[in-house]
C-alpha cells in the first residue's frame, strides 16, 4: 500500500515536470507589452489604466530589467516564438533587422501612411528614420517602417554654470568652436576644476563622439566611403579626427579616470560638481533632478571643428516599440500605439519621465534644459538613421584605441592602422 502510494507520488511529480511548463493561458483580450524602462514603468501603467477606462481594452506593461536581462529575454522569446504583442529591441539596427528577417516584427508602413500620412506626420522625422529600412539596405530588409518611437534622446555636452562663472567663462555663452572649447577647459583647469567627464568606459560614448567629429571633418560622403571600405581609416582626415582626442588629453581636458568610468559614475561626478563638463544624453535631466536638484547646468552642442561642414549632434535613437508580426491583436495594438503617441499622452510622459517626446507637436511642451537638448533635433545623427553600418569589431578596436590615445599609450596613426587591419579582415570574411 505504502509502495503504491510512493509510485503514484513519483508519477505525479513526473507529470508535473512534463506538463507544468506548458504555455500560460493568457487573457486573449489583453495587449501585452514588454519593456526595460524602469524609470517609465509607473507612467506607462498609469496610461494603460487610462486607456482601459476609455476603451475597455486591457493593456499590460511588463517590465524586465536590467536592460541586459531584458535583451536576453526578448532574444530567447524570439527563438521560441513567445514574443508579446509589443516589445522593444535593444542593440544596434542590425538586431532589429534580424528580428524583422526572422518574421517577428510587423511592417507598420501602411498604418503610418493611411489617411494621408496622418500618423507618420506627427513624428519628428528622425523618429521615423531610426525605425525605417530603405531600399537597398545592407540587411536585405523589405523597405518599410518597423517601429513606433515613443521618445528620443540626444547626447551633448552639459556644463556646470557655477563652475563656468567661477572660472571667468560666460555661462550663457558656452564655447561654440573647438578652440574656444580647449580654452574653456584650460581656464577651468587653471581654477582647479576638472574638465570633461563621461562614461567613456562604456565605449559606445566614444563612438558617438568620434562619429560626429568624423562627419564634421571628413564630410558625409567620405565618412560613408570609409564605412563602405573605399577610403582607408589611415586617411589623413581620420588622423585629424583622432588627434582631437590627443589634443584634449594633452591639454588636460579630461577628468581623471574618465576613460574607464561607467556612465553612472560619470553622472555622479558631474552631479556632485567634481567636474565641469559632462558628455551625456538627454536622459541625464531626469538623473540630475534626482541626484542634485540644485545643480545649475546648461547644454552645449558639440563645438564645431570644421566650420565649412555641418556639425551634427548624436541623437534620435530613443525608445521604440515594435509590433509582433504574429500578434493576434495587431489592430488593437495599432489603435493603442496611435493613442499612446498622441500629443496628450506624449506631454504626460514628458512631464513625468523628462524625456524628449517623439511627437513633434509635443516639442513645444518641452521646457528648460530638455528644450535645449531638443533644439538641435534637425541636426541629429545616429547609426540607426543611415543605411550604412560599420562592423562592430572595427568600432570596438577604434573606441578602445581612442582610450589608449587618451592615456597616451598609442598615437592616432597607430590606432588607425590597427583599425584598418581589422576592417580588411572583416571585409575578407564577409
Amino acid at each position, binding site marked *: 500500500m505504502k509502495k503504491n502510494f510512493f509510485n503514484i507520488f513519483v508519477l505525479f511529480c513526473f507529470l508535473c515536470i512534463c506538463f507544468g511548463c506548458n504555455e500560460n493561458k493568457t487573457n486573449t483580450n489583453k495587449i501585452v507589452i514588454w519593456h526595460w524602462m524602469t524609470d517609465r514603468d509607473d507612467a506607462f501603467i498609469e496610461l494603460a489604466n487610462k486607456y482601459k477606462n476609455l476603451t475597455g481594452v486591457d493593456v499590460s506593461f511588463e517590465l524586465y530589467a536590467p536592460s541586459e536581462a531584458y535583451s536576453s529575454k526578448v532574444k530567447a522569446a524570439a527563438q521560441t516564438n513567445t514574443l508579446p504583442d509589443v516589445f522593444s529591441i535593444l542593440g544596434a539596427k542590425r538586431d532589429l533587422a534580424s528580428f524583422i528577417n526572422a518574421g517577428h516584427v510587423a511592417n507598420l508602413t501602411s498604418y503610418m501612411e493611411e489617411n494621408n500620412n496622418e500618423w507618420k506626420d506627427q513624428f519628428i522625422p528622425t523618429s521615423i528614420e531610426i525605425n525605417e529600412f530603405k531600399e537597398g539596405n545592407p540587411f536585405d530588409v523589405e523597405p518599410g517602417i518597423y517601429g513606433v518611437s515613443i521618445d528620443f534622446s540626444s547626447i551633448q555636452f552639459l556644463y556646470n554654470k557655477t563652475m563656468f562663472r567661477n572660472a571667468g567663462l560666460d555661462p550663457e555663452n558656452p564655447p561654440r568652436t573647438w578652440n574656444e572649447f580647449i580654452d574653456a577647459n584650460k581656464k577651468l583647469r587653471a581654477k582647479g576644476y576638472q574638465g570633461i567627464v563621461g562614461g567613456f568606459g562604456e*565605449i559606445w560614448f566614444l563612438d558617438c563622439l568620434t562619429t560626429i567629429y568624423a562627419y564634421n571633418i571628413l564630410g558625409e560622403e567620405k565618412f560613408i566611403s570609409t564605412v563602405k571600405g573605399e577610403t582607408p581609416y589611415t586617411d589623413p582626415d581620420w588622423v585629424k579626427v583622432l588627434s582631437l582626442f590627443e589634443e584634449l588629453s594633452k591639454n588636460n581636458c579630461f577628468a581623471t*579616470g574618465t576613460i574607464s568610468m561607467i556612465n553612472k559614475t560619470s553622472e555622479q561626478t558631474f552631479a556632485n560638481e567634481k567636474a565641469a563638463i559632462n558628455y551625456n544624453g538627454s536622459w541625464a535631466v531626469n538623473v540630475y533632478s534626482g541626484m542634485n536638484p540644485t545643480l545649475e547646468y546648461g547644454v552645449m552642442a558639440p563645438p564645431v571643428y570644421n566650420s565649412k561642414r555641418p556639425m551634427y549632434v548624436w541623437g534620435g535613437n530613443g525608445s521604440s516599440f515594435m509590433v509582433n508580426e504574429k500578434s493576434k491583436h495587431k489592430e488593437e495594438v495599432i489603435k493603442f500605439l496611435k493613442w499612446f503617441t498622441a500629443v496628450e499622452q506624449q506631454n504626460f510622459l514628458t512631464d513625468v519621465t523628462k524625456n524628449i517626446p517623439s511627437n513633434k507637436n509635443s516639442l513645444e511642451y518641452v521646457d528648460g534644459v530638455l528644450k535645449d537638448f531638443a533644439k538641435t533635433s534637425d541636426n541629429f545623427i545616429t547609426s540607426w538613421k543611415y543605411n550604412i553600418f560599420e*562592423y562592430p569589431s572595427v568600432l570596438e578596436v577604434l573606441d578602445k584605441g581612442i*582610450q589608449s590615445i587618451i592615456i597616451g599609450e598609442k598615437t592616432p596613426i597607430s590606432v588607425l592602422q590597427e583599425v584598418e587591419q581589422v576592417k580588411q579582415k572583416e571585409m575578407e570574411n564577409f
Partner: protein
Amino acid sequence: MKKSIKYKDIFSSYLFVLPAIILFLVFSLYPIFKVVELSFFEWDGISKFTKFVGFKNFIDVLFSNKIWWKSVLNAFYITLIALTIQNGVALFLAFCCDKDIRGAKAYRVIFYLPPVLSGIVVGLIWNWIYDGSYGFLNHMLTVLGLGQYSRAWLADPKTALMAVALIHIWKGFGWGFIILLAGLQGISRDYYESAKIDGASSFQIFKNITIPLMIPIFFLVSILTILGTMQIYDLIISTTQGGPGYHTEVPITRILTTMTGTSRFGYACAMSLVFGAILLILSIFQLKVSKKIER
C-alpha cells in the same frame, strides 16, 4: 511472482530518478550539446538561418584572435595573484582563528562577509576607493605624505589589472578562509599535543603536521580559486569594462562582447569551448599533481 516484483522494483527505482535525469538532460546536457553545435555555425542569435563554417571559428579563436589570448593571460595573471596572495592571506587568517584567539567567531563572520556581497556592489564601492581625484586610497596616500603616488588606479594601464586583482582578493579570500579553517579544525589536536611533548617547535609542527595533513584542502582551495578567478566577470564590468584599451579584458567579457556586442553567437560558443578546455586541462593537471603528492 518473484520476477514480477523484481521488475516492479527496477521500474519504480527508475521512476524515482527520472525527474533528475530529465532535469539533467534538459538543463545541462542539451545546452552543452547546443553550444558545441553552434560553435560550428555563424549565427546572430535571432535569425532562423545558420551558416555552417566548420572549424573556422575555432581556428580564428586559437590562431588569429590576439585580444582573446590577451584576455586569457589577464585572467591567468589575476589567478596567479589570487592563488598566492589571496590564499596566503586566507591561510594566515584561518591559522589565527584556529588558535582560539579572542573574538574568533566574530572574525569568521567578518571575513566571510565580502564573498556574499554582490560583485557589482563591491565594484562600485571600490570605484570610489580607487577614484583618481577624490578616491579614498589617494586621500590616504596624501595624508601619509605619499601624494606623488596618487593616480587613477583603474584608468592607468600600469595599475588597472592589479587594482582589479586586489578587489578580487578582498572579495574572494573569505571562501578560502572558511574551507581552510574547516580543514585546520579537522586535524586532531592529539597530533599537536604529541609533537609538543616530543619538543617540536611551532614551525616544525606547522611544517610537519599541519601542511601535510592540509594538502588535500590546499588542492581543493586552489582548484576552486583557479576556476572561480578565471571566470571573473562582474568585478570587471562594474569597474573598468575591460579598459583602458584591453588592459583588463578577461575571457568572459570577450565572450559576452562577441555574443551581445557583435551578435556572433557561433564564434562566442567556440570561445566558450576553448575556454572550457583550458579550465579542464588545468583541473586535470591539478588533480594529477595532487594525487602524486598525496602518494
